């Protein structure tokens, strides 16, 4: 009998405890590591490519050294990052390559994410061959001639066809449809991560081997391995609307920043800084190259850039 009453009391207590605190808000889910020891924390999402790391490194450096915040970074893929942003687990995405579906859902419908303005960098996705290869065979830079070179671009992995190397599964890509719709004798081989792709490109370049790869600008690797873009049928508004029927090049995208809506309103100086953060492709590449090629710690790379470009970032602080 006594056991039963204790159990009843315990479960009642547990229930009141749960309902007592009322509804839990899934849109306010900060990281447990945020704001430790009374410091004000900003959590930034880092995407897996180095350009995104460069943005975050500089923003982090300024937030920490100029404004006295503590910055947490979390590496998340793009789509989950939008989700995290809407829940408040991260405060900002500094480089977005265009996710219309997410924009509709979170910015327009739910209003849990606020646009943070242009990053100042323009992105473009395309197919690239190394410049040493393009110089030897100038006509490879047009998609119409690609089939001629399929043999040269064959690898063990691509079987009897030429290899078109794609990168991380998180990136925007229509390549499978493009290969099919343009009747190309190529096999899309997914490297699975940008790191794997870069490593492979470097190995190819070291041996001056030809390759064809999905790649994008701005990217620091161009400084190490010069690459030339292959012309695809020109992009027209809406030609990539149906993912199965795409037969045109990728668009040119001005990269965007997004902030958590709450943070945008109440984030104080940190939010202001992130909204004003705007730099050029050259700036970003400079920092990226220091991180990826000279293997500097992102913090050191950011410091070096910040020390040399006071006029640029002073404006973000005002």
């Amino acid at each position, binding site marked *: 009998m006594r056991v039963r009453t204790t159990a009843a009391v315990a479960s009642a207590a547990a229930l009141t405890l749960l309902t007592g605190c009322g509804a839990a808000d899934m*849109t306010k889910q900060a990281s*447990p590591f945020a704001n*430790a020891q009374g410091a004000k924390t900003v959590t930034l999402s880092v995407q897996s490519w180095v350009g995104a790391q460069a943005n975050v490194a500089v923003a982090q450096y300024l937030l920490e050294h100029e404004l006295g915040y503590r910055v947490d*970074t979390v590496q*998340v893929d793009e*789509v989950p990052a939008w989700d995290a942003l809407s829940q408040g687990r991260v405060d900002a995405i500094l480089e977005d390559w265009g996710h219309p579906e997410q924009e509709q859902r979170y910015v327009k419908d739910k209003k849990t994410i606020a646009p943070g303005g242009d990053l100042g960098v323009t992105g473009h996705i395309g197919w690239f061959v190394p410049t040493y290869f393009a110089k030897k065979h100038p006509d490879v830079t047009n998609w119409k001639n690609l089939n001629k070179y399929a043999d040269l671009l064959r690898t063990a992995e691509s079987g009897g066809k030429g290899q078109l190397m794609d990168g991380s599964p998180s990136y925007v890509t229509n390549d499978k449809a493009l290969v099919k719709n343009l009747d190309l004798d190529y096999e899309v081989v997914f490297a*699975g991560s940008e790191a794997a792709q870069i*490593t492979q490109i470097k190995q190819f370049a070291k041996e001056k081997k030809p390759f064809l790869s999905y790649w994008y600008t701005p990217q620091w690797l161009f400084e190490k391995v010069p690459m030339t873009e292959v012309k695809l049928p020109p992009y027209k508004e809406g030609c990539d609307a149906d993912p199965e029927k795409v037969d045109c090049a990728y668009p040119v995208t001005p990269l965007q920043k997004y902030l958590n809506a709450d943070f945008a309103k109440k984030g104080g100086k940190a939010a202001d800084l992130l909204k004003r953060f705007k730099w050029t492709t050259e700036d970003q590449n400079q920092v990226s190259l220091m991180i990826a090629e000279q293997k500097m710690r992102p913090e050191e790379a950011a410091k070096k850039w910040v020390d040399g470009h006071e006029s640029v970032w002073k404006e973000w602080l005002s």
Partner: protein
Amino acid sequence: MATITAQAQRAAPPGFLTHPAVRKLLTLAVLAAILVPLAVTQWGGATWPSALTVDVSEPLGKASDWIIDNRDSHPLFLYFFGHVSNVVVLAVRAVYLALLAVGWAGVTAIGALVAWRVAGVKLALGTAAAFLACGLLGMWVPTMQTLALMVVAVLASVVVGALLGLAAGLSDRMDRVLRPVLDTMQVLPAFAYLLPVVLVFGIGVPAAVLATVVYAAPPMARLTSLGLRGADREVLEAVESLGTTARQRLLTARVPLARKELLLGVNQTIMMALSMAVIASVIGAGGLGDRVYQALASVDVGAALAAGIPIVLLAVVLDRVTCAAGEERLGEPGRSPLTWLYALAVAAAVAIAGRVAGFLEWPDGWEVNIAEPVNRAVDWMTAHLYSGVPVVGGTADWAAHFTSWVLNPVRDGLQWLPWWSVLLVVAALAWLIGTWRTALTAVLAMAAIGVLGVWNPSLDTLSQVLAAVAVTLVLGFATGIAAARSERFERLLRPVLDVFQTMPQFVYLIPVVALFGVGRAPAVAAAVVYALPAVVRITAQGLRQVDPAALEAARSLGATSGQQLRQVQLPLARRSLLLAVNQGVVLVLAVVIIGGLVGGGALGYQVVFGLAQGDLASGLVAGAAIVCLGLMLDRVTQPTERRARKGA
């Protein structure tokens, strides 16, 4: 059960038919003769017939949209998941803040003192050194984040596991119900169920903790149940005769008698939680795993290693300390509560002294940069081994040969086989090694893959698994035999195996790409590295446990050492070798997904894709296919009665 029927049959049919394996195969052949023509006339062709597939992508897509749209408003989330999430966040935060408040000096001191009380002076020094190394590598804060996450995840896993184990240990019916559930949870590759967890909780710590609990609770449950069931009957009878109630018996006799298994369960749970802590970085768990993952993005092996080493150190320290706690040391002096009190007092004093002296945050200057020399070494390796090595050829050439001579034929062969013949082969293998039940499970698992509509990519993955397992077994058996025959070699090998087993797999993804290029070959290489230690360990242990009398007898008959090995040791260690095969398969499969990150393609890529694009349909279907593949392979390679479990 199998032996009983075999004996009953022994009188009847003559000759070779008495052999159970032959009987099983004959039965299967009869079944096939009836079913296959039916199947072929209905659904011909080599690949799985499309008439027998179910497209689940639409309902799954709808489900995921529903969750995202209702997550902020539906009562299920507001009053249940939301609170679960909040409790996890609060708990992790509390532990993290406590660790930060104690400071690096305090944490090191407490760790060392606990290790000293539990496991002796040597381990105490090792523990302190490990903590200091984490600081020296510049990883103090991430280490504390990982530690906080671990504490909460392990506590939750131990509680959940112990409760399940208690139920299974006390009730036979619960045991029957739970066993297949636990089996499935253990062959599940962790990556596969990150996605649904993320969908419900969003990325971050709560999702990571819950995924870890799913992954790490089964060994605890299994070992708890084992301990309760294995309790000495005589002791239990004696206790019963004293007129105790069932609850008293449980608390005073059965649980204490199961102490050893319980502690082993805790040990296993900790190890699995730690390996999950890294995988969970993909969904934003933060801490050391995140540093490894970020380093991977900038192709920085050195930085990845700097974050990977603390994980290895934590794993080794926690493993040794919990193992030592499991060993019986009851008779020894100095284990009284009073010495614990002293130890805690000393730790508190150090922590306070550290606070007063300002030793809270790890000092910036005290860091050793290992990234640079490591990267130089990796660069050298790839520059000199990748291609153009005289005579043997570079690693890239090997990889290309391996792909075109092994991986491609195996894959094409598997995909060429008619679907029903694949099912038949699976049935035959599983039945020969197990019972008709295991055969049925294996066949159903394989059929489920077809029904889900991922037959071809699954066979692609299967071909990679088979190739990787073959390589692992050749290397593992050879190394294991060498280790069993030479003490010194085994001593040298032990730390290497420790490192391989606990180093997060992400760390060696870049080196394998740098050596083998992008594709399936590096995925296979990564899987081999990961699965090798378990195979080596089980092989060496099995060979060592061979009855010395049998060996002595062989030696006295003048057998050479090669003969001893082939004719005595290997046959007698058959069970262990089978277990090694089984473990090799399960571990290789666990890495196959990660292989998706280096160009492995097939199911692994689809899971990674689903996770990256938040695409529940493709991610979950591929994840389910991997689970089915795992179940099938596990059953096909599983000795009827398995003794150790994953990670043992």
